[in-house]
């Protein structure tokens, strides 16, 4: 009885898995495929860090220009004229663009709004560079995870099962005192390690490059980096499992490679592109239906000089302001509805694209990093909320002047006292914290975990049923 137990211990499952993993690793590490994957991942991540750090510095340089011009505009402003000045709300350059750029360079980053009913607020894209230049795919960690890691997993795993079958090596291996699950577990671990090692090396070099470029990350940002890194390593399990399923189901290496190449093209290129084309059909934007004429009320020329208007306590002006403000609110409401519709359309595109696991990974990474649509949406919400802060400030100053007619927000009929420029509230953008990002990413992460479990189970099941017959 004792001897039997010792025998079992001697051949403990982990020992077989360890021996098989070491062998699989040895095979992969000596292969050109692995070396190419290592070089590409490390290079892309390092270059991405350098480019994003340089771009960040350039973008950060543009911000003071806007603020300086604004400071000049309000330097000699009166309380009344503050209503006519467009106050900028600036979305700061995205520090974690190397991690998950999330289209921050394409979405508006400046919102200008005055309190006057005649000034149309505008969202602008004030980015460095030529607007006509074709924007290519941003180089960041999510690009590496979504595109390079998935491709590398397919390249390393396409012949993991069918290759040794064709060479009859699998038959000899399975004829030994090992279980099938041990053989597949070893393949999974080995291929995953061959993705994890380059990814971790690339990530380390990426962070070192950022430090070299003077971009020091805060504690919260480092947590985000860790979370996205962990997501990348987790996604690699999914990609490897998919490769193993295909390799076990399709019994010839060249056919397995072809099938995986098609899966990759569909998941990375076709599905996202198709979702972008389908979305406007499902959810068209209101403006596209031909709706116009809701920009702003036209400025009236019927204003009376203040001394005349004072005679009837500005009755005409108050009525006119009430009408104009109502018109402005209606127009503003329509503008916001359009922006909301655009955001909704973008979100729908993302959800449709999330049929592809690669894009689900992208979505999860952007949410974890606090980038992408979540950051865009937050900027819009905070920029709109900033109007109330400005209004409260000007109203407060105006109320403090007994000589003001208090006709909001018409500069001629507000206080003419000088406004203290430094006291005018400035917009500050509140970035999404890592904890909030984690909450935002909960659903896509849960779906990814389920997909990974299903793919891994499918790989083991396929291999359990795999028929080693038919070798040439």
């Amino acid at each position, binding site marked *: 009885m004792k001897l039997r137990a010792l025998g079992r211990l*001697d*051949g403990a499952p982990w*020992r*077989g898995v360890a*021996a*098989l993993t070491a*062998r699989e690793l*040895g*095979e992969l590490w*000596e292969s050109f495929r692995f070396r190419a994957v290592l070089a590409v991942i490390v290079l892309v991540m390092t270059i991405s860090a350098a480019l994003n750090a340089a771009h960040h510095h350039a973008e950060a340089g543009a911000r003071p220009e806007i603020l300086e011009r604004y400071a000049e505009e309000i330097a000699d402003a009166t309380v009344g004229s503050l209503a006519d000045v467009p106050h900028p709300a600036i979305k700061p350059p995205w520090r974690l663009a190397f991690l998950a750029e999330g289209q921050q360079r394409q979405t508006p980053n400046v919102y200008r709004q005055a309190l006057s009913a005649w000034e149309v607020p505008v969202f602008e894209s004030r980015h460095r560079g030529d607007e006509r230049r074709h924007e290519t795919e941003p180089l960041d960690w999510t690009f590496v995870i979504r595109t390079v890691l998935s491709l590398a997993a397919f390249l390393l795993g396409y012949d993991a099962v069918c290759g*040794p079958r064709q*060479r*009859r*090596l699998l*038959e*000899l*291996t*399975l*004829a*030994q*005192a*090992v*279980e099938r699950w041990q053989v597949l577990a070893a393949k999974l671990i080995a291929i995953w390690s061959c993705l994890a090692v380059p990814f971790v090396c690339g990530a380390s070099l990426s962070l070192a490059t950022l430090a070299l470029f003077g971009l020091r990350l805060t504690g919260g940002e480092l947590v985000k980096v860790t979370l996205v890194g962990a997501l990348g390593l987790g996604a690699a399990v999914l990609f490897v499992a998919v490769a193993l399923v295909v390799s076990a189901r399709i019994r010839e290496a060249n056919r397995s490679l072809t099938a995986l190449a098609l899966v990759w093209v569909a998941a990375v290129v076709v599905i996202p592109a198709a979702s972008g084309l389908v979305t406007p059909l499902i959810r068209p934007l209101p403006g596209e239906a031909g709706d116009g004429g809701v920009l702003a009320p036209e400025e009236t020329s019927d204003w009376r000089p203040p001394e005349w208007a004072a005679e009837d306590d500005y009755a005409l002006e108050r009525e006119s302001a009430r009408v104009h403000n109502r018109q402005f609110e209606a127009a503003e409401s329509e503008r916001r509805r359009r922006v909301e519709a655009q955001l909704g359309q973008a979100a729908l595109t993302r959800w449709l694209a999330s049929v592809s696991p690669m894009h689900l990974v992208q979505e999860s990474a952007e949410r974890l990093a606090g980038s992408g649509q979540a950051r865009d949406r937050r900027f819009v919400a905070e920029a709109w909320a900033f109007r109330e802060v400005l209004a409260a400030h000007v109203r407060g100053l105006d109320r403090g002047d007994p000589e003001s007619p208090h006709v909001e927000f018409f500069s001629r009929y507000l206080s003419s006292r000088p406004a203290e420029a430094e006291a005018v509230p400035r917009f500050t953008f509140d970035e999404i914290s890592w904890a909030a990002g984690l909450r935002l990413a909960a659903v896509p992460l849960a779906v990814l975990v389920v997909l990974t479990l299903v793919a891994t189970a499918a790989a083991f099941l396929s291999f359990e049923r795999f*028929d*080693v*017959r038919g070798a040439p």
Partner: protein
Amino acid sequence: MNHTQTNPPKPVIEAIDLSKRYGDGSLALDALNLAVRPGEIYCLLGARDAGKTSALHLFLGLTSPTAGRARVGGVDVAADPREARRRLAYVMENVAFYDTLTAMENLEFFAQLGGRWRVDAGELAMAMRSVGLPERAFRLRVRHFTDGMRQKLGFAAALVKEAPAWLLDDPLAGLDPQATAELVDLLREVRQSGKAILLATQDLFQARELADVVGILKEGRMVLTTTRADLRYTDLEATYLDYMRGGFSSLVEAMA
């Protein structure tokens, strides 16, 4: 009283009504019964697709039987395939090894997978010498091996495993006469050492030369079993061809 005279040793390799039907409906093996005892070479003779490899795969647990049982060293393969494989050494036609490893490294790796976690280099070298591999090949990467050297390495791996039962799937096919002769000698030595050997082959001459028992498989059915003693009086080639053509004359002859 000599016990062994009255009770022959228990079979090491045993098939009891072993059948296999694949998912596509093809019947690979139909109620196979055989027993290979220690020190015996049982030769499964048959054409391609006769069910020889399927039978070996059932003993290895690489596929599961539709009916019947396969036992190795008293272990039911279906109940404990890993333990059954631990008791089996397997050499097939065109043995494959890891090309990037040396012969020594390959042997060590497969010995570990076979359940022997501690094998010293001397033992590995001894096994390679036994099969006639030259010393210079021991530390040579297998990618530089000829087909004959690979087959020899396959036999060396089987020796290192120290399994009581050997399954051989046409391991001498396509080898040059010298290599074949060396390996035939080796098989005789292995039989001498008390191993039970189940050899699947299409080669009538090998069967005549090596087998203690010959079983002829046709379309998954064992159509004839004959012993070495019977072979002295039987024209194996004529009998085999008769069965392959579906004739019965040789059956009558054999019965007589």
